[in-house]
Each structure stands twice: as C-alpha cells, then as structure tokens.
C-alpha cells in the first residue's frame, strides 16, 4: 500500500480541483479505446466505435467517461485509504467484468497524458510522479 506525504496529497488534490472531469474522462477513455482496440471488448454495448470520430462522439463513451475521473477525484480526497473508495469498483471490474489489471495501468497512462495536454505548466515531473 502506497503512503503519500502531506506535500504529495496537497499537490494532487490541488490539481484535481481544476480538472474538468467530463472532458478529462472522455478524452482518456476515448484514447484508451482508440490506441488499445482490445479494450473495446468491454464496451460491446456502446454502439459505433469504428473510428476516432465515432469514439469521440459516442454518447455511451461520454456517459461512462464521467464515472472514471469522478472516481479518481473522489480518490484524491481519500489518499490515506485508497482501497476504500475503489472497493466496489474493484469487485465490479475484476469479478464481474473480468478486466485484466494491465488495462487499468493503460487507462492510468491515458489520464496522465490528457492531464499533460491540459495542464502543461503544472504537470511537472514531480506532479507526474505523485500521480
């Protein structure tokens, strides 16, 4: 279990107060589906995912994308106990949806890259490391 310093918690929380969760979530999920196409198998019911424009405009992708950064934003307020906020999601994704854990790392990478495009000045090497 990772333990964060006061400085790390403050830095992450401060950045996430500026995050537009809908925009960051949407871009992150869309990039995951575009760049790693096998992840689309978890979105069979989402409809048209055949191109970048189809994925970026897909209403079900947008709807799901609000959930992802909201959970991260919630986690940024509970950094002393990250397992708590994610317990239900862990059970859902691992036991019910059978998502390979590697895909969470890939989604995490997408979120970092999207944060870098939106927060060019704030996303220092230290900020990246805190995330």
């Amino acid at each position: 279990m990772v333990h964060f310093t006061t400085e790390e918690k403050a830095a992450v929380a401060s950045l996430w107060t500026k995050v537009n969760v809908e925009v960051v979530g949407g871009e992150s999920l869309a990039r995951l589906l575009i760049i790693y196409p096998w992840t689309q198998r978890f979105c069979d019911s989402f409809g048209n995912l055949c191109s970048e424009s189809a994925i970026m405009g897909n209403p079900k992708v947008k709807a799901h994308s609000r959930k992802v950064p909201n959970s991260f934003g919630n986690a940024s307020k509970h950094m002393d106990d990250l397992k708590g906020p994610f317990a239900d999601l862990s059970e859902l994704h691992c036991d019910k949806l059978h998502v390979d854990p590697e895909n969470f790392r890939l989604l995490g990478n997408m979120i970092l890259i999207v944060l870098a495009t939106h927060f060019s000045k704030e996303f220092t090497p230290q900020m990246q490391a805190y995330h």
Partner: protein
Amino acid sequence: MVLAPADRAAVLALWRKLGTNVGIYTTEALERTFVAFPSSKTYFLHLNLSPGSAQVRAHGQKVANALVLAVNHLDDLPRTLSYLRELHTHKLRVDPVFFKLLCHCLLVTLARHYPGDFSPNMHASLVRFLNHVISALAPSSG
C-alpha cells in the same frame, strides 16, 4: 513489422515540427522517468542525475539522435538500430520494461509541449512508432 502509411506520415510531420528540439524533449523524458520510476536510475549511476544535469542532457541528445535515425529509416529499423540493440541488451543489460517507461514519459512530454497536435490519432501513431523502435531495440519480454 511495418508502420502503416498514415502513422508514418503523422510521425514524420510531427518530427519536422520538433525540428532541432528533439534533444530538449528526450532530456525531459529522461528526467521524468527518473522521478516517476526511480528504479530506472540504476542504469545511470555513473552520471550526475540532479535536475538540469549536463550529463543527462548529453544522454538525452543521444536518445534524440537515435529517434531521428529511426524516423528516417522506418523501413528497416532492426538493421538500423542493431548496434544499439547489441549495446543495450548484451553490454548494458537493460530490462526491456525501461524502454516502455521512457517512451511513456516521452509521450507525456510531447503531449505537454504540443497539446494542439496531440490528437488521439497522433497519439496512436506515436505509440505504434515507439513500439516499433522498442521491438528493434530490445528482446521480447515474454
């Protein structure tokens, strides 16, 4: 492994835009790798790794030179990069996962400096290009 024409065109266009600044971005990518993934420093214990280090800048330029070489020889990366593969695999014994971490940090760096150019399609083309480079540079990890 061959890069698709659309990916090739996208990467070449971005590289033209980066111009002579590739070394700046590869140096930042190295610095990010050391901070985010401290175990990566194990390959550079002979260098001064403090922020702004001239030695890190020099190594960043070597990485940049290799990437520019790769961009200009997309049809034959394995042969073009064979000397680097030999060096990193047999002499330096670099864990292939390090290349993935460095490439991720390079993507973060480019996204940060060129947000307007970093569309999902460009991002995907860069991922495929860098995967080609890693394949030419490092043995398969599994």
